[in-house]
């Protein structure tokens, strides 16, 4: 279960603007999903230690070098941004 206050708190953490209607809907929907997910509490996980990883991943290293064929032009990437100025991304002021 999750209540409206918690929904608002999580939305803030997630940087999501939700309308009052959305908050209300989310309360019901998330509660239902969380109730279902609670099934996991039945599982005995004692035998699983921290080291038991689900994927056999190892660290992968590479040389730290410039690959020219992967280079993209600054302008190309900046042209995707909503606002730019003189070769920089433009954002609202952070310090006031």
């Amino acid at each position, binding site marked *: 279960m999750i209540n409206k206050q918690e929904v608002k708190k*999580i939305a803030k953490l997630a940087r*999501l603007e*939700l309308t009052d209607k*959305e908050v209300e809907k989310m309360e019901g*929907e*998330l509660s239902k999903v969380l109730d279902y997910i609670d099934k996991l509490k039945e599982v005995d996980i004692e035998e699983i230690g921290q080291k038991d990883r689900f994927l056999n991943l190892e660290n992968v290293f590479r040389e730290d070098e410039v690959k020219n064929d992967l280079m*993209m032009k600054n302008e190309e990437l900046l042209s995707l941004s909503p*606002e730019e100025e003189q070769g920089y*991304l433009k954002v*609202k002021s952070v310090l006031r």
Partner: protein
Amino acid sequence: MELLNFTISRIHQGLIKKEFSAFELCQAYLKRIEKEDKNISAFLTITEELALSQAKEVDKMIFSKKEIPFLAGVPLAIKDNILVKDIKCTAASKILENYVAPYDATVVKKIKEQGGVILGKTNLDEFAMGSSTENSAFGPTKNPYDLQRVPGGSSGGSAAAVAANFSVYALGSDTGGSIRQPASFCGVVGLKPTYGSVSRYGLIAFASSLDQIGPITKTVDDAKIVFDVIKGKDPLDSTSFEVSLESERRKMVLEELIIGVPKEYFLKDMDERVEKIIRMVIKRYEEAGVKIQEISLPHTEYALSCYYIIAPSEASANLARYDGIKYGYSEDDSGNDLLAVYFNSRGKGFGPEVKRRIMLGTYSLSSGYYDAYYLRAQKVRTLIKKDFQKAFQQVDAIITPVTPTPAFKLGEKITDPLTMYLSDIFTVAVNLAGLPALSMPAGQIKDEISGLGLPLGFQIIGKPFSEDEILEIGSLFNNGLI
């Protein structure tokens, strides 16, 4: 000549023998899309110019008597969460509505190098989150077998495009069943490769420990051809592996093959029509001499819960990049407040399902809930993986249903997220365990009211990196050899 019902090898032969040109073929497909896709809405973007220029290049090669690769001149469609340079890539989200891909995904690069002809980008559930393609910000795709029904999702546009003969094959992505479930609903073949078999570079990330790109095709043989082109280690995706190019394994002997049937995938209250078809498939293998063995995957009933913690958690982190600053939709109605740009851009840019998953993931990862949800889910994931490891000590492959029902009606499940999530019940465990799995047509179920036949698939699950084996097992059935 009917140019639209061909397999990849048939097209390859036709091009070499000059029965038709790549240009003619491409035009025929584009014409069909133009005429018919208004009923189905499989495509979000048609890349006519790109397709025709690629086809011309292939014709030039053929004209100058150069040898052409298998995929040269073969028209394909690409799910709109895989980047094609200079073409819009929306992930079916308002937040990326005008985003133009600045580079090619590795799979796209490989297909372009072969001379593939890219017809367009296909519809999906927003950011690949969903099981019906109804979560697309640009409207749902319809099932070509019954326009009242969903094509499945999230790769619904790709599966519908292949089923409706809009393209010879398509690329999809599969995080919890997003290739296999729509393949089942649309009567086509879908391969979800082993985690790491295919590079994810240039795939818009949803849940990085689960996502995998794979082919959707008309036949199992075609799935193998496409998989062989797109697989392999990529320095740009450090989770990718080199899969041995030529399998050294001995030729498959049917009488030595053991196929497992997990009892947890045949529930007491399951759809009888589905059970009947899947049992029929199993019987066909048995009659051909394959040994069928009942097995148990005891943690199956927890897979869906586990998935709906892990996938949203990873998604909430992956989707943090959409902030209205670097690219994508930006809500600039917020005075001089940077934080408000984040809140409003995300609040207005994301659709309801994406928001739900971000919320669910943020909740699972938040202080005070992390141990109870995320950490516990990771441990259950390990148990699910161990179930499969144990099973594969006794059997070579596992056969199960792909979906609990055939394609459902548009609007039937969209209002109840949990009911929608339950349609992934037979596919999510495969992603959690990182295994390869093939979905292929098993038969059809006749709808009592409309009288229309609805396709249904079965699933062959294999050991890690055993794609060749499950494809071979599948091709026996697909080619009517058993």
